[in-house]
């Protein structure tokens, strides 16, 4: 008797996964450089954060579009997981956008308490989105 089991694959398309890698890495790095700025008041750390966040928003923008499409047309994925994923990406990108403006301010105001909180929100949201996107929970289970 042969039992066949379809290979379970994560919710995210491989290209989507590659795109998501950018905001995960860049927001995380931005959080690290924000921390470095607040510890040292060395302005170059804040400049680094500005570019890291800008880069995260560019690639994250593509992820955002894909996530919204994936929520509207879930295909084989569960609507709930697609929705949760989409909500996290919206949170990541939205707080990242506000943070980009925050980081355009001068001196200490470029980060300050608001900047570091927004960096944390974007980072945590990106990491959680990655967890969900790569987990098998959202994938269709086809068992014989």
């Amino acid at each position, binding site marked *: 008797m042969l039992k066949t089991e379809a290979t379970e694959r994560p919710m995210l398309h491989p290209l989507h996964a590659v795109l998501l890698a950018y905001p995960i890495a860049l927001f995380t790095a931005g959080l690290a450089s924000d921390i470095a700025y607040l510890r040292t*008041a*060395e*302005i*170059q750390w804040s*400049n680094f954060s*500005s*570019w890291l966040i*800008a880069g995260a928003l560019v690639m994250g923008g593509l992820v955002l579009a894909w996530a*919204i499409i994936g*929520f509207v047309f879930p295909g084989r994925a569960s609507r709930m997981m697609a929705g949760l994923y*989409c*909500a996290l990406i*919206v*949170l990541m990108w*939205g*707080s990242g*956008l*506000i943070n*980009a*403006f*925050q*980081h*355009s*301010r*001068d*001196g*200490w*105001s*470029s980060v300050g308490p608001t900047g570091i909180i927004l960096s944390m929100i974007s980072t945590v949201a990106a990491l959680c989105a990655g967890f969900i996107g790569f987990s098998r929970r959202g994938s269709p289970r086809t068992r014989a």
Partner: protein
Amino acid sequence: MRRLGLPAATAALLLTACGGGDPSLNQTGAQPQLPERDETLLPPMKIARPTGWEGASPTVPQGFVITPMGSDLKIPRQILILPNGDILVAEGSGGAAPKLRPKDVIAGYIKSLGKTKVKGGDRITLLRDADGDGRAELQTTFIKNLDAPYGMALVDGALYVANQDALLRFVYTEGQTQITAPGEELTKLPSQINHHWTKSLTASADGARLYVGIGSNSNVGERGMAVEEERAVVWEVDRATGTRRTLATGIRNPTALAIEPLSGALWAVVNERDELGPQLVPDYLTAVRDGGFYGWPYSYWGKNVDPRVRPQKPKLVAEAITPDYALGSHVAALGLSFVTDGGFGGDFAEGAFVGEHGSWNRQDLAGYKVVWVPFVGGRPAGPPADFVTGFINDKGQARGRPVGVAFDARRRILLIADDLSNTVWRVAPVAAQSPPPG
């Protein structure tokens, strides 16, 4: 709906990022009213888009007439009137500040929308109006191959020109219409980055010393304080030897220097910091005190601490001098000229004209005019009065933007450099307009 919530809220926040001033606040004079700091996510940016004069002229008070003395210049900034009545106009555009953040790219583009498309001349032009009709018959290049020249001064047959990186001396003979001999470098001037590149210049009352205004390398220290060595200062340069000392510090961007004729004291117009709200911080007119610290970047208008600067320097802030006279927030005062020998008489007998280039960091445009600050006994006395207006048309577009101003007591005229329409305007009492007898 929920998933649109955050972007929608962001958009709303940006759109409503207000940036207009409260007109009931008096922001001029010795005690300007300062509102609370208002740091918005996006600084309010409003640039008056350029348009032409199309035959129109700036508006002058009754009893005065305005004419274009020279046109088709290449970004005229400051004006020097020579003893024989020839007019020198420094033309150019400097600065090479690298773009460090995405913001620098975007803000630079937006500000460029309010500027002329003409490339800076890097030269000094001579205008000669021998018949006194208010229009120069001769317009010729006086010195070429300069590097963003700005301040000029004439002392004892020597013409001093402040390039963006050095103070030069040229030998001048009266009546000359061109100088081809290269200038002698009296001293180098701080020019690294040159965020604020203009080097203003004037000579002391006795002519022995030259004063050079050197602007800061950032809005409020956001490039780090290491690049602010000998920035936001006024230098005193010995005219004979070229040795210098720092006269005043913390004076963010002293864009024009002039000697108050009654006291012989050095005065400056200074551009203050941005992005604290539409009504912070007022640009000012002040006597420059020897050894004075004027707050930048740690504090503004005296001892009001700017929280954006870390580490803070409370000891230094405790010494910060409150400037003498506020001109209004974001007006961008770039020109200063005291009248001498009775000025235009009447209300304009003692005081200074100030050229206000105009704002970008507030929704309600400020500046874009030349104001008159009345003085009594060598001190400002009374609110500034509009003298030349009409640089903004009724559609809110800029036809011109005033920079340097120069009063000529011998001919009773005021000259105004307009770096948007690339014109030098002449204001004269109506009587002076009639052709000379004979």
